[in-house]
């Protein structure tokens, strides 16, 4: 089982990763966006870390919904409502739980993805965070179906997200600010797919080691 402390450690890892990669994400966003994705995510997760102590004793559903609300109210841009929705929907799937199985985690990731797609109306291949989140879910599901344990399944999710992230490079953006560039969006990695891949990489590194 993955415990609440493990989940909190995962979030802390993600916050650190974002802080370390703030300039990198902003650089990616300056190529095809408006050079704010790193700053946006860093600001959002700094606020999340401030909020977490007040809900750290609650169930994972409450924790994730609080994270979602915090991101929505501090990030702005497209990233705020999209990541906010991911965490709120994932939180609904984790309602009442204080420890979770790998199947619970997959259900939460899938719910988050469904929320992001419903809000942003993007499918795969449009050069967005969906291109990392969606293969992560698919790879994790395949791994669990094959009888993989939590560590294996999360490693598959992270690898799937990273491959999806790299596959955004040759894509033509058809959603978000990057779509204004048309053909000029080709050849650049999507910043939102990159920050999403980092979320799954932290999950694999921290939760995969949990038991």
């Amino acid at each position, binding site marked *: 089982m993955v415990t609440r402390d493990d989940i909190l450690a995962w979030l802390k890892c993600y916050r650190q990763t974002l802080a370390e990669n703030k300039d990198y994400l902003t650089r990616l966003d300056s190529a095809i966006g408006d050079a704010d994705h790193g700053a946006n995510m860093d600001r959002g997760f700094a606020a999340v870390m401030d909020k977490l102590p007040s809900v750290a004793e609650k169930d994972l559903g409450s924790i994730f919904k609080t994270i979602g609300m915090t991101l929505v109210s501090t990030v702005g841009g497209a990233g705020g409502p999209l990541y906010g929705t991911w965490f709120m929907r994932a939180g609904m799937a984790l309602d009442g739980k204080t420890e979770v199985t790998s199947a619970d985690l997959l259900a939460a990731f899938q719910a988050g993805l469904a929320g992001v797609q419903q809000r942003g109306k993007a499918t795969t291949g449009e050069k967005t965070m969906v291109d990392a989140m969606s293969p992560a879910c698919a790879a994790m599901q395949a791994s669990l179906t094959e009888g993989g344990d939590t560590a294996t399944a999360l490693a598959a999710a992270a690898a799937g997200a990273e491959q999806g992230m790299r596959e955004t490079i040759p894509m033509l953006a*058809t959603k978000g600010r990057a779509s204004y560039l048309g053909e000029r969006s080709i050849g650049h990695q999507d910043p939102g797919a990159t920050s999403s891949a980092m979320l799954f990489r932290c999950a694999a590194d921290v939760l995969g080691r949990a038991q």
Partner: protein
Amino acid sequence: MKKLINNPADVVKEELQGVALAHGDQVRVHFDPAYVVRVDAPVVGKVGIVSGGGSGHEPMHGGFVGYGMLDAACPGAVFTSPTPDQMLEATKAVDGGAGVLHIVKNYTGDILNFEMAAELAMAEGIEVESVVIDDDVAVQNSLWTAGRRGVGATVLAEKICGAAAEAGKSLKEVAELCRKVNGWGRSMGMALTSCTVPHAGQPTFELPEDEMEIGIGIHGEPGRTRMALKSADEITELLALPVIQDLPFEKGDRVIAMVNGMGGTPLIELYIVYRKLAEICEAHGITIARSLVGNYITSLEMAGCSITLLKADDELLGYWDAPVKTPGLRWGM
């Protein structure tokens, strides 16, 4: 970077403090979450109108809060959409029982945040209608983009809808009117220079001394083409013709014409552009019924201008002429 600021991180906050002090007779500024609201809000029985977007486009939107225009405006960080909590609080603050219209410019961030705010407000029992403005003809409107950007027509929509709300129109009617303005309004802009977002510290894009960008967005998004600098008359043609052809505006049409400065271009130059625009309209048999020349929807210190034409019937002209009293636009009272 050479700017009249104290600290990049405090730009929006200190600007809002200045607005509150300068225009306290017309607007109140609420902080945490940030919104600018009419002093007399909510006006009981009147449809409330809320808009918002990234800062850096002043006087839009905060400068258009007041009698006959917006009830509230939500300022985001410079060039970044505001957040749903701001929009929700602003919506609650202006709800006089007749519902609230959200006027949203078509940028993914603005759309998503306003959508969440509308859902939250409706969950609290407030009737909300949202109208998206997408009048920028520089962007191809196709399945392959996020759609046309919202630019100059936003100013005209806010004025006209504000007057209709003041006249006691229902939420449905004001929203319908807003869609009509968006349907009949078209714009295109150009840049002579780039602009620098305070917290970025670097110009948003590079534009050599002898070049210009035609079809620029209000956040420095790329336009249709970059080309060698031309005369004011030629530039006016490069903007006006695509605008006229897009709707298309036809012989016999009456229009409201706006020549808008991007922030770094003096009025003396905007009037040179207007002079040529009037000539082009006349040559096309288009009558400019009303005009507006000045800095209304800017892009920080960018030099350049945009042209907006709005086809206008008696209904639109009537609301256009109605009294308005805001820090950024005032006539008739």
